């Protein structure tokens, strides 16, 4: 089989066709890893790991940590209060999420007025650095690019109300939830569409809807409440949208299909996701990405353990295509760079479809 470029490989997989080998992906890389592996250069880090999918420049923070091609990899000083375009240090951010030293601690959206106040202006160019992104995409035509951001509508709605309060409001005042959810949806859809304009091949929409062994809300409610939002994002984006969620999302995969999402990322094994089962049930409908345990296999120095984990994932999900090898969450600060390198190297070796 003729060797494909990364972009060809990824697009082939997203279409559901068989590529030359399983593509490699991650949702995010911690700045500490980028500094250790790529001397702080995002592109170099992704090249060292040999990743097929690179991120376009986009404001992208998670739990106070700038991820991927965030506009800056610098964590602000302790005394800096967020509230501008950056979310996630001290204070209330533009979505109404409350942060303390980079850790999410609650939400402040309680009323209709708060919804008005905490739906931020789009200021797309401030979030995405279009010139830098265009140059990046133009100079790397062999790579696939994604817009990876952790501001999906469901998670953002939950976080801006506050974890505990969200579930009360969910039971007491569902129209309020729906209104905020649709505001977040419209906001995300525009970000996704702008990502497509700037050259992203697909969107990787971070939107946590589950945790260990459970979904936050029932699958039936999720289908009724969230699927129309995801479908609207898919329509507006104009490029494939892959969904990233932590936790046990297997009961929500039917919703992902209904919404027209191209695939799902992370498929956390520690949360109870069995990749083989998911492949059997959804392998012909969704691109599956992830499941390499980043909690245990990627934090140590046992490279055989890493290879075993990659082999397991390949055995369970490689056949027939529609699989991307990836960690089960992100390349977080606790990962051993050598283990991560070995994961991707070995994936390239055994992920070929002509062996």
């Amino acid at each position, binding site marked *: 089989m003729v060797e494909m470029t990364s972009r060809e490989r990824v697009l082939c997989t997203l279409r559901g066709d068989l590529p030359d080998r399983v593509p490699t992906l991650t949702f995010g890389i911690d700045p500490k890893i980028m500094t250790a592996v790529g001397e702080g250069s995002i592109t170099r880090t992704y090249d060292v790991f040999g990743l097929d999918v690179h991120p376009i420049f986009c404001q992208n923070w998670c*739990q106070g940590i700038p991820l991927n091609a965030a506009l800056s990899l610098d964590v602000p000083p302790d005394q800096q209060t967020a509230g501008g375009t950056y979310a996630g240090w001290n204070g209330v951010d533009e979505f109404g999420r409350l942060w303390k030293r*980079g*850790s999410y*601690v609650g939400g402040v959206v309680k009323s209709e007025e708060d919804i008005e106040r905490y739906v931020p202006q789009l200021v797309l160019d401030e979030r995405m650095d279009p010139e830098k992104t265009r140059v990046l995409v133009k100079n790397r035509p062999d790579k696939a690019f994604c817009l990876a951001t952790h501001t999906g509508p469901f998670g953002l709605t939950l976080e801006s109300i506050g*974890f*505990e309060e969200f*579930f*009360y409001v*969910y*039971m*007491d005042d569902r129209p309020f939830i729906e209104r905020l959810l649709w505001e977040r949806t419209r906001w995300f859809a525009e970000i996704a569409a702008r990502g497509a304009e700037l050259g992203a091949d697909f969107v990787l929409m971070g939107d946590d809807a589950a*945790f*260990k*062994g*459970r*979904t*936050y*809300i*029932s699958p039936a*409610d999720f289908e009724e409440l969230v699927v129309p939002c995801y479908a609207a994002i898919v329509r507006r984006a104009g490029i494939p949208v892959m969904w990233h969620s932590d936790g046990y999302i297997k*009961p929500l995969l039917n919703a992902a299909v209904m919404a027209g999402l191209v695939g799902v990322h992370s498929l956390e094994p*520690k*949360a109870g996701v069995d990749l083989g089962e998911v492949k059997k049930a959804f392998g012909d409908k969704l691109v599956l990405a992830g499941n390499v345990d980043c*909690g*245990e296999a990627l*934090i140590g120095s046992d490279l055989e353990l890493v290879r075993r984990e990659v082999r397991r994932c390949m055995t369970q999900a490689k056949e027939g295509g529609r699989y991307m090898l990836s960690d089960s969450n992100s390349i*977080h600060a*606790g990962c051993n760079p050598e283990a991560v390198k070995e994961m991707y190297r070995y994936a390239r070796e055994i992920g070929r479809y002509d062996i």
Partner: protein
Amino acid sequence: MNSSQELFDAVLTGNSQKARIAVEHALSNGTDVRELIGTMNSAMEEVGRKFSRSEIFLPEMMVAARAMKSAMEILEPLIVGNPILARGKIVIGTIKGDLHDIGKNLVAMMFKGAGFEVVDIGVDVSREAFLESIRQESPRIVAICALLTTVLTELADAVAFLRDSAARNDFKIMVGGAAVDSEFAERIGADGYADDAGEALQVAKQLLGIA
């Protein structure tokens, strides 16, 4: 329907207003406080079972806990100082190196709903801070959460540290969270492990010998 059944149903369905009315009605009829608490505990146990079987989800579980907490506010003045009724204190926190609090908050809610006094000492909590809180609060249970596998060593060290502390015989240690399983909990010497928030309440009650 009698007020006991009304109270059970109100907690089970998360109706705070009905739960309060049922408690007031029962009290005015001379129902014993212990009986009312028992009814609500039974309801919360059923909530925990339904949650564990995925028959209900977080919203339903949390409004049930809120309903019980609301009804408990009426009973609290009658409980204070009564050693038979007071369930005691639980100190809960997420271990050092881990900033996640969702699971911890859920478990804390279940404890509060069941009438425990919960001292939430937050996330990224060192073993020394746990011990300090134990000395200050004299809890019956210390619940330690860990979501990240990277903090498991810290969790094991913290449990060993607390087991060696002077006040060790006065409290039980529970652990839980996405990174933890029962085998690990047993290996590090924790007294109890729970897979989810519903189970956490059952385990806490078992550890304390509460029906």
